């Protein structure tokens, strides 16, 4: 108890609180700008931390990280352009709500769900970090393969009405993720002799092209229409009764995010898609998902922000960074004398608890700072459309090239933008392309490693462990459910079509004035 109180004291210094406010606010703004995300935010702020003490420096970086994950949802909702890949799933319902004139409600749910997911994962981190770390270790290649397969199935859900087109886009995204060196053998794939392609295609240029640049093209082609007007950004938090009605969705999304974040190599974008897939099957309002349903925003935002807390579980408890962002955070910890690993809780318990407290304060700060941040975006989007679009093009270029410093990433972004525009015009959903690209590497590496472990016997995947069997059974149930729901929908449509025809035929045979 003394350790926790001392940790609270460490976190509540004015320097740490100031760092949280600056970091979180800057993170929200950076996250909201298309192309710039957590990695760019951390790169900007990392050098500033060298002169700070441990807690203040980590407070600044955690603020930037959490703020940027939330900030991506603002532009996802307002202009259908996710600021970060983690918020790609927020566009599914966020933008339709904006088109329906419910922008305040959408931003309110995104903000509250982000706060809820972030805080719940912090609480889980405090009480269950060792247990979750132990459970996460049980997830070997085959279990991760089954989990990612389950997440891939959300392509089926978000491609309603154009399943084939959704699947082809999903495969396209998956193919993009296979370009470059093979993760197992190191052989070059689809590089066509170009050395710059050996490092593969990065996710950010593809997301920037698919969403930000294609949105500029779409708005340009429709610049004479009223639909291109960006609505005024306003924020209305949900009432207690509304929160009560959707509490299960909030808790489910947060738990999924907390769990997925604890698995190394998955990340917030994957968590958001997995959570959205779960909402498609379990939400009582699932029929409205994709048409402007707050449950979709809740699923995406609560889970991606829950990852920000639980991503620290493998990092702190095992010394394994889950993704680029946590690797950067781990680097910052090492610079400041914290050595993540199994001995950390025993050797530096006070510092670790102080980080947990900082995480909770950051989420509260995010809730408070959401209003002024959205206010800033309101003023930005009040500018003439040309300036907004010029800014999006410029930020897209900076975001695409800044992650790896590879000019080829700009060409990838430009080509993806043109391709995405053509696909959008043809009625192809773009979200599966991002899902394929996000989940593809994890799916491929886990499948290949699993095949090596099982000596090429794929059937043994199904009986490898209890977790794997459970996940494969869930996949089977999901498929059966989807097929059954499809058949029922089809029969209902046929019946609905027949009914007016039959009643028309009946009224034609009934004499005028008859019963």
């Amino acid at each position, binding site marked *: 108890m003394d350790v926790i109180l001392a940790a609270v004291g460490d976190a509540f210094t004015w320097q740490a609180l100031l760092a949280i406010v600056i970091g979180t606010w800057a993170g929200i703004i950076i996250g909201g700008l298309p192309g710039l995300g957590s990695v760019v935010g951390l790169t*900007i702020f990392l050098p500033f931390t060298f002169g700070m003490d441990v807690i203040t420096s980590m407070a600044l970086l955690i603020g930037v990280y959490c703020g940027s994950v939330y900030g991506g949802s603002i532009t996802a909702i307002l202009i259908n352009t996710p600021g970060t890949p983690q918020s790609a799933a927020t566009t599914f319902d966020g933008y339709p709500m904006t088109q329906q004139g419910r922008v305040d409600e959408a931003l309110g749910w995104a903000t509250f769900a982000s706060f809820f997911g972030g805080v719940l994962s912090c609480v889980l981190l405090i009480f269950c970090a060792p247990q979750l770390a132990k459970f996460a270790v049980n997830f070997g290649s085959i279990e991760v393969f089954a989990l990612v397969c389950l997440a891939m199935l959300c392509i089926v859900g978000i491609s309603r009405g154009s399943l084939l087109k959704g699947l082809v886009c999903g495969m396209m995204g998956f193919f993009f993720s296979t370009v470059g060196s093979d993760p197992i053998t190191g052989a070059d794939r689809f590089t066509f002799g170009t050395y710059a392609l050996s490092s593969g295609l990065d996710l950010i240029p593809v997301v920037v092209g698919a969403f930000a640049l294609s949105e*500029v*093209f779409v708005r340009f082609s429709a610049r004479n229409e009223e639909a291109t007007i960006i609505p005024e950004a306003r924020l209305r938090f949900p009432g207690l009764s509304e929160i009560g009605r959707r509490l299960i969705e909030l808790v489910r999304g947060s738990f999924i995010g907390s769990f997925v974040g604890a698995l190394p190599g998955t990340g917030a974008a994957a968590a958001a898609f997995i959570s959205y897939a779960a909402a498609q099957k379990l939400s009582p309002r699932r029929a409205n998902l994709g048409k402007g349903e707050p449950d979709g925003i809740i699923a995406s935002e609560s889970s991606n922000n829950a990852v920000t807390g639980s991503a620290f579980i493998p990092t702190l408890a095992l010394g394994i960074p889950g993704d680029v962002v946590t690797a950067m955070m781990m680097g910052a910890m090492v610079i400041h004398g914290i050595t993540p690993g199994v001995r950390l809780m025993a050797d530096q318990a006070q510092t670790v608890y102080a980080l947990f407290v900082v995480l909770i304060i950051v989420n509260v700060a995010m809730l408070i700072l959401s209003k002024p941040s959205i206010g800033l975006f309101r003023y930005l989007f009040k500018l003439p459309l040309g300036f907004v679009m*010029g800014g999006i093009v410029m930020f897209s*270029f900076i975001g695409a090239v*800044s992650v790896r410093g590879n000019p080829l990433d700009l060409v990838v972004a430009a080509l993806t933008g043109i391709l995405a525009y053509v696909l959008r015009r043809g009625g192809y959903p773009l979200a599966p392309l991002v899902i394929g690209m996000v989940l593809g590497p994890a799916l491929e590496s886990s499948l290949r490693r699993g095949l090596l472990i099982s000596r090429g016997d794929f059937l043994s995947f199904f009986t490898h462990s209890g977790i794997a069997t459970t996940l494969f059974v869930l996949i089977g149930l999901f498929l059966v459910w989807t097929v059954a729901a499809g058949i029922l929908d089809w029969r209902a449509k046929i019946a609905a079509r027949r009914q007016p025809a039959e009643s028309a035929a009946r009224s034609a045979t009934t004499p005028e004035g008859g019963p």
Partner: protein
Amino acid sequence: MFASLIHPRVLTALALLVAGAGLSITAWQGPESAMLVPRIVLTIWCVMALAILVGELIRQAPRQPKASPRGARSPLPLLMAAVLVAAVATASLGFLIPALPLVALTLWLFRIRRPLPLVLGTIVIGGGLWFLFHHVLMIRLPALLTSGLV
């Protein structure tokens, strides 16, 4: 039949099928272990693209796309080409030099045509953001000079 073949939706599906088939050839020629997953992915891609193409062809004859007013061509391909050219030129000219005309063209096409807002917008959005990220925040963008100044 021929008229329906040149419809954009059919052409898109056809292009996807051709691209998928071309990439499949590369995948089947590559090493078996490394190309295992790409082969599966590209096979699904081709099957789906073929199904979409057949679906688009057997649909009722599509309507002709709406003619633009006064018969004018949309300058969208110009914007797309400008984005692509700027992206390609960045590798050799650095970030700033291709970015400035691209921003100016974007503003112009989005009807910011008065000289002062156009010039100011180009300088602030193009030059200002480049200066902020490259020189102030030290996020190194591709440069023309080896010193990284421009």
